[in-house]
């Protein structure tokens, strides 16, 4: 049937046979049928032509539907996905993953699954990839592990969906240094990202390029590009950063000072230390106890300003205290241990006895975090200064656990545990079995004492524990919280806690069992894919480096 016939049929039907008087003619076989139809509805009255038209529409519809042809295939412009030699996840493991993906945020076990799967080098089932890529898109904190787990098939899949572009970008980021020409012409955000990549790949070349262009860039651009220097920051970067302390733009100066403050050997840090030394003095008493004498700076000179100290306080404090705070926060705390010949704990205790306890502790905490000084962080935390959240994230779990255990015990006996557990939550990594049992014991103590705790708090507490308790402690936790505790209103929540820890144990067992199997899947669909014999090294590098002892 020609397009013309179809068009005039449509026109006649839309306008009506009262208005369109010409009869509808077709060609070929359909034309013959039209002739027969016209013969059955003689006359040129609109009624007769309307019923003829109906029959023609009916005939055409049947004719077209049965005669419709399939479009021909077009050449696909994209190659198929490459092979993946990682061992496939077991069937039980696949069911567990499906549960995790279906239930989503409330249980929040996906991060742990991803981490374990990445560590073991397990290949997730292809059908889970869209959900995993979606999870990686919406949850930034798990993106890194998603990228490790999805493998070549997942990276391939991501190239089809603009929403999953992050996966291809991350894959690109690892090995290609951008050409300087591209860097000069690219839009703002892209330039910064490219420069960061370049710093990772070849920090010297990237710095040299930046040094060359900084003079001709606008202020906003200079600050953003300079910030990219934080990638692979090292002592060699000091001259460039030092020169930027005299930049015309304030943002650039601040940025340069921030970066220099993170180089313990930089002149800026030495200058700050010298400044601080005049205001914080260690006096040793005859009986061996040290004390701190503090004197706030009386004025802010230009040299100090140049090193990034800001005049107006951004927190609630007096101006002079604020200046000292900034100076102290820049100095690596280990300098005080060296200077005063005292332990961090002795110095912290002395600081707490001064009128400026908050100032000192805050600045030291910030400095401990900036310079990743675990000894000082520990000393600050031991003195019960739990309100500095950054400190916890700096301390390795095995060193934090004894501190926390003691704290939890005290809290369980006197208050409710939610605040303490809230802080514990900030520390990365799975809890050890010993610590998990300690937490369970504290919860039991708290409940036996009938401590007043709101259902919301209790739910939060149980949620954190369910995600973090060591899977190996499952039975001990069950015995402690369900078997030896009188049933109460909390029992359903505790049930949930024990069940989730049990699910995690089963989940990790399934993943760990994987690594003992040979690398090829052995299933028909997989062997077809791995024919090319290529073995991607995704899994090989990961194994071993993330091994934990507590599992």
């Amino acid at each position, binding site marked *: 049937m020609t397009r013309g016939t179809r068009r005039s049929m*449509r026109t006649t039907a839309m306008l009506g046979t009262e208005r369109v008087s010409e009869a509808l003619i077709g060609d070929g076989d359909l034309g013959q049928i039209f002739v027969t139809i016209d013969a059955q509805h003689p006359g040129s009255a609109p009624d007769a032509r309307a019923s003829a038209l109906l029959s023609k529409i009916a005939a055409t519809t049947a004719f077209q539907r*049965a005669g419709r042809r399939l479009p021909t295939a077009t050449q696909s412009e994209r190659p198929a996905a490459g092979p993946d030699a990682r061992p496939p996840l077991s069937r039980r493991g696949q069911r567990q993953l499906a549960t995790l993906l279906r239930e989503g945020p409330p249980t929040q076990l996906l991060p742990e699954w991803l981490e374990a799967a990445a560590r073991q080098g397990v290949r997730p089932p292809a059908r889970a990839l869209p959900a995993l890529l979606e999870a990686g898109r919406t949850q930034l904190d798990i993106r890194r592990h998603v990228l490790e787990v999805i493998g070549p098939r997942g990276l391939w899949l991501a190239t089809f969906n603009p929403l999953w572009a992050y996966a291809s970008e991350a894959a690109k980021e690892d090995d290609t240094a951008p050409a300087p020409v591209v860097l000069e012409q690219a839009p703002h955000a892209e330039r910064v990202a490219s420069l960061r990549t370049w710093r990772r790949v070849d920090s010297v070349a990237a710095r040299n390029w930046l040094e060359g262009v900084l003079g001709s860039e606008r202020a906003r651009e200079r600050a953003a590009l300079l910030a990219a220097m934080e990638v692979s920051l090292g002592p060699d970067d000091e001259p460039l950063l030092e020169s930027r302390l005299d930049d015309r733009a304030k943002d650039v100066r601040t940025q340069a000072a921030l970066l220099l403050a993170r180089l313990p050997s930089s002149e800026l840090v030495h200058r700050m230390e010298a400044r601080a030394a005049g205001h914080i003095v260690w006096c040793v008493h005859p009986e061996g106890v040290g004390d701190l004498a503090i004197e706030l700076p009386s004025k802010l000179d230009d040299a100090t300003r140049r090193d990034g100290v800001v005049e107006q306080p951004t927190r609630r404090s007096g101006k002079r205290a604020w200046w000292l705070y900034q100076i102290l926060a820049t100095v690596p705390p280990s300098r005080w241990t060296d200077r005063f010949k005292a332990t961090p704990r002795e110095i912290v205790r002395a600081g707490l006895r001064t009128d400026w306890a908050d100032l000192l502790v805050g600045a030291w905490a910030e400095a401990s975090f900036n310079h990743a000084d675990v000894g000082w962080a520990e000393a600050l935390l031991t003195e019960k200064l739990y309100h500095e959240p950054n400190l916890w994230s700096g301390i390795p779990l095995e060193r934090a656990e004894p501190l926390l255990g003691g704290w939890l015990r005290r809290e369980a006996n006197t208050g409710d545990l939610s605040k303490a557990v809230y802080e514990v939550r900030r520390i990365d990594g799975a809890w050890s079995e010993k610590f998990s049992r300690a937490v369970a014991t504290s919860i039991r103590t708290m409940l036996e004492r009938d401590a007043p705790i709101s259902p919301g708090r209790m739910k939060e507490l149980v949620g954190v524990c369910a995600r973090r308790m060591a899977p190996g402690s499952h039975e001990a936790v069950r015995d402690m919280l369900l078997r030896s505790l009188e049933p109460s209103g909390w029992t359903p929540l505790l049930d949930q806690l024990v069940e989730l820890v049990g699910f995690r144990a089963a989940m990790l067992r399934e993943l760990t069992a994987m690594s003992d199997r040979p690398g090829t899947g052995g299933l028909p669909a997989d062997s077809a894919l791995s024919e090319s014999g290529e073995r991607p090294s995704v899994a090989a590098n990961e194994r071993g480096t993330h091994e934990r002892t507590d599992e």
Partner: protein
Amino acid sequence: MSALDRQPDASTVAKQKRLAAREKRVLAGVGELSRFLEDLLRQGLATASATGYRTWDEMASRMVDAQAPGLARMVRDLGGVAHAGPDWQDNLLERIGRLHLLLEAYRRIESLDDDLASDVRSLVGFATRRDAVLARPAVHDTWWVLGRRLELQDNLSTARCWLWGEQTGRFALVLSFAAGGQPFDIGPAPGTRIEADLHFYPSAVPLRATIASSARRGRANRERAPNLFRSLREAWDDYRRALVRLPWIERFPMTLRGVVPSPVDESWRLQDAEHAIAMQPFGRDGWTLLAVSGGHPVDVCGEWNGAAFVPFGCFSEGGFATLARNPLYSEIAP
């Protein structure tokens, strides 16, 4: 004994009387609907459709009164098509064409063969009694459950379940219904096989069937049946041949061998070496299928819905992957 014999006679007579009365009303309704369509084309669809749903809804109610619920549904659907989407004019004409063909067929039902006559009667709205279907010969086979789709529309839950017989090579569609949110038997699980006797409804293209109660529980499918899947061309030709026998087919099962999915703009396509077919996956199914294929050919089962292929499941990684899950109903992962 004689009294017992007479009683069913009496009720049969009453039944036949009722049926005759209904057929008379339906025939009158068919005449009315034909005149209505003629009037529409005489005045022009542009004017009629401009008046919106009301024209169609009123006519649909007349068909309910005429005890022709099938026709009522088709008329109501016409109202939904008018002015919907860029191709509404062609869509509307196509549906009017099919409706007219049905009305003409019903008028001449005496001249049709028994199977086609059954189709026409059921399309107009005469229900086929299940016991009549169960009285027909059983087809015994190992039936593969290709896919299942649950739908909730107008407060009616429908489960549509496609089967394929290992020995007979026949497709079968098992439907079950329930009012509102009532729990009901949604049929066997996709990705399993059942040993069962099926009874097909009479039809020129027999697809709809009912499972005799003797069905055994399903076993999971690990391997794929060698002759289940067909090339795109073969599946398409089956569909066209079926249309020739029964022009009102709306959904048709397709099991496609070695097709590669790909996203095209905002929609999807499946293709093998020679041909391509439009695909309309549910929800995230397109991405799942693409992930499972990895750009390599996969075997996919589903149904053609008149405009595009809807995937229900595929074979991957040594097993059957179920698609077309409905979030309204929670199903357990296979």
